[in-house]
């Protein structure tokens, strides 16, 4: 059977390195093979194979009752996913672009997130899709949506930065009994720099645990998603100035692994937060106040942030490049904070 696997789910079985997109596809495929309660819903995910071809070949293998093409109605099919989850299934909802989760804001925050609290039982479902900018998608195909939901008790939010985390965390998300939002940065999907050979074994990565992407003593940089790679670039540049940066990849945004951040801050005394998402109301704020609560005495400088500008994502390349934070921005901020 593995001979006629769709190409994007066969890398690991063939012993080849997988892209981020392929890692996502492999996680979906393997979970669907493992557990027949798992099924997919989304726009054009069946015959067309999905806007980014994550689910190419899934319809042939799993049939139309497990790969469901939906009408344009993100609220409706997310609500329907909740109903199916109540009945014991494990829906994975694809947003064609994560931006399109906004019509599902009501049902996600009011019905789905509150279910367990209201005594209506757990709602195991995953809402996943491509997020983030840098692809000239303009304001409606480039958003990061985490902060729309970060304030909602009852949800989990995952935003991985590597193929192996993407695969392991998506498996965890599907097996998790809570509703999980899962963002996949488009800039990582096919990026050659983050191909990885993945373990053949069924490996899960726990939700809620950050990862030390780089160890260092002088300065903590906390980030997630594509920006982790910008931070690692910046760390390299700073290393040439003998500034030893610790880079923490959050992996899960909600619940936030504040212990991991605090441990690093207690070591370095300096904290810089980097997110691609816009500035005001970004996750940097919550991290800042948690570190005030938990590590204030260890801070040897202000908690600072490098983020996108407070504006919709611009459409033209020139504007978008200016809008997005760069590795150079991170390095400048890191240098400043080091010297503080």
């Amino acid at each position, binding site marked *: 059977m593995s001979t006629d696997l769709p190409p994007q789910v066969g890398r690991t079985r063939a012993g080849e390195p997988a892209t981020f997109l392929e890692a996502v596809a492999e996680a979906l495929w393997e979970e669907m093979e493992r557990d027949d309660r798992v099924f997919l819903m989304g726009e054009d995910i069946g015959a067309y194979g999905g806007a980014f071809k994550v689910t190419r070949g899934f319809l042939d293998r799993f049939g139309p009752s497990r790969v469901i093409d939906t009408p344009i109605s993100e609220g409706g099919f997310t609500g329907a996913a909740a109903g199916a989850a109540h*009945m014991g299934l494990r829906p994975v909802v694809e947003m064609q672009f994560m931006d399109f989760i906004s019509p599902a804001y009501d049902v996600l925050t009011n019905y789905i997130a509150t279910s*367990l609290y209201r005594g209506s039982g757990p709602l195991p479902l995953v809402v996943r899709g491509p997020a983030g900018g840098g692809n000239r998608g303009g304001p409606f195909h480039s958003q990061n949506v985490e902060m729309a939901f970060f304030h909602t008790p009852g949800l989990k939010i995952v935003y991985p930065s590597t193929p192996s985390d993407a695969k392991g965390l998506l498996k965890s998300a599907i097996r998790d009994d809570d509703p999980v939002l899962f963002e996949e940065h488009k800039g990582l999907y096919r990026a050659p720099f983050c191909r990885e050979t993945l373990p053949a074994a069924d490996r899960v990565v726990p939700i809620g645990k950050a990862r030390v992407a780089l160890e260092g003593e002088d300065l903590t940089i906390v980030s997630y998603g594509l920006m982790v790679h910008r931070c690692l670039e910046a760390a390299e540049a700073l290393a040439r100035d003998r500034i030893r940066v610790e880079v923490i990849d959050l992996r899960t945004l909600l619940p936030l692994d504040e212990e991991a951040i605090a441990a690093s801050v207690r070591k370095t005394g300096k904290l810089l937060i980097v997110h691609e998402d816009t500035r005001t109301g970004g996750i940097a704020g919550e991290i800042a106040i948690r570190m005030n609560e938990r590590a204030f005495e260890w801070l040897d400088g202000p908690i600072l942030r490098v983020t996108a500008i407070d504006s919709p994502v611009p459409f033209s390349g020139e504007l978008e490049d200016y809008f997005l934070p760069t590795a150079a921005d991170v390095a400048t901020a890191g240098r400043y904070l080091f010297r503080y």
Partner: protein
Amino acid sequence: MRGLAGIPREALEDLLFQCLQGKLLEERLRRSDTPQVLSGATREIDLRGIAIARAMRRTRDGKGDLCFPGPLAPGPALAFGATPLEYLRHAARTRTSPASARSGGDSWTDLRRGILGWSGRPGMMTQVVAGAALAFARRDADRAALAFESFPALDSGGWHEGMSLAAAQRAPVLVVLAGRDDGDRRSTTGSIARAYGIREIRAPANDLASLFRVASRARRRMAAEGGPALMKLGLLSAGRRGALLPQLRKQLLSEGLLLPSEIDAIARTASAGVSQALSRILREGAPEPEDALVAVRMDSAPLHPWTRMRSPSPEGSRVPSKEPGAVHVH
């Protein structure tokens, strides 16, 4: 068919019992000596919801039909096996209420019985119920879903997306439009059904037996053929509402299906249950404040009380504060 012909005796007994229970509950709750704590509970119980819900396949193992009682709550929930005590607990927000006093309105779910509560969004539950019905269509031959919505709910995008998806996926869900008013729609239920390409179910009469029969038939057909259906319950005057139960009783007697003594026995049981529930509810305790902290995520530890600054610096201080009189907290 007319009268009660063809309805199984067990169903008729149940129907009578549940309608009596509903009526008694309603009457008792309307009395002036109803305790304040139950003031939120005194709503009318439309017996038609009971008749329709009783026509579904109810089990207690989570494998029967599913029902969102919506604007006819709690009637359909009672028909799905919820007890008056549970309803009163919910209304009185006691510790033992189905939602542990954490949420109100009709946000009351019991999936083993097939009762689904909501989040106070008219129309939204048609999505959720459609998704459940989708699961039925995929896995279970003989399950169907029932949702009570109202006319005003039809204007919401949530309802439309739910109905549209149910139609596209041929999910077996019967949506009953009911409520305290008809809205001011410029169109008929039939034209709405046709716009979604789904069946309209006509509820020609408002007597409980006919409604039961129509709903049974709709359910059988949905389970066999799939696909949603839409049915409208018209408004009833107070007089006609009040006549529903006496009429059922009369039919049972005149068709010789139950003896007067049997009806009396059922009425006594219903009455005893309601009385017991009412006296019991007043003795039930208030919820524990800590229940407000109940986990909203599966893995969340009970929230620590840090919010309230009882332990404002859980990590303590590395260096003593410089302020005079500063305290060291651990």
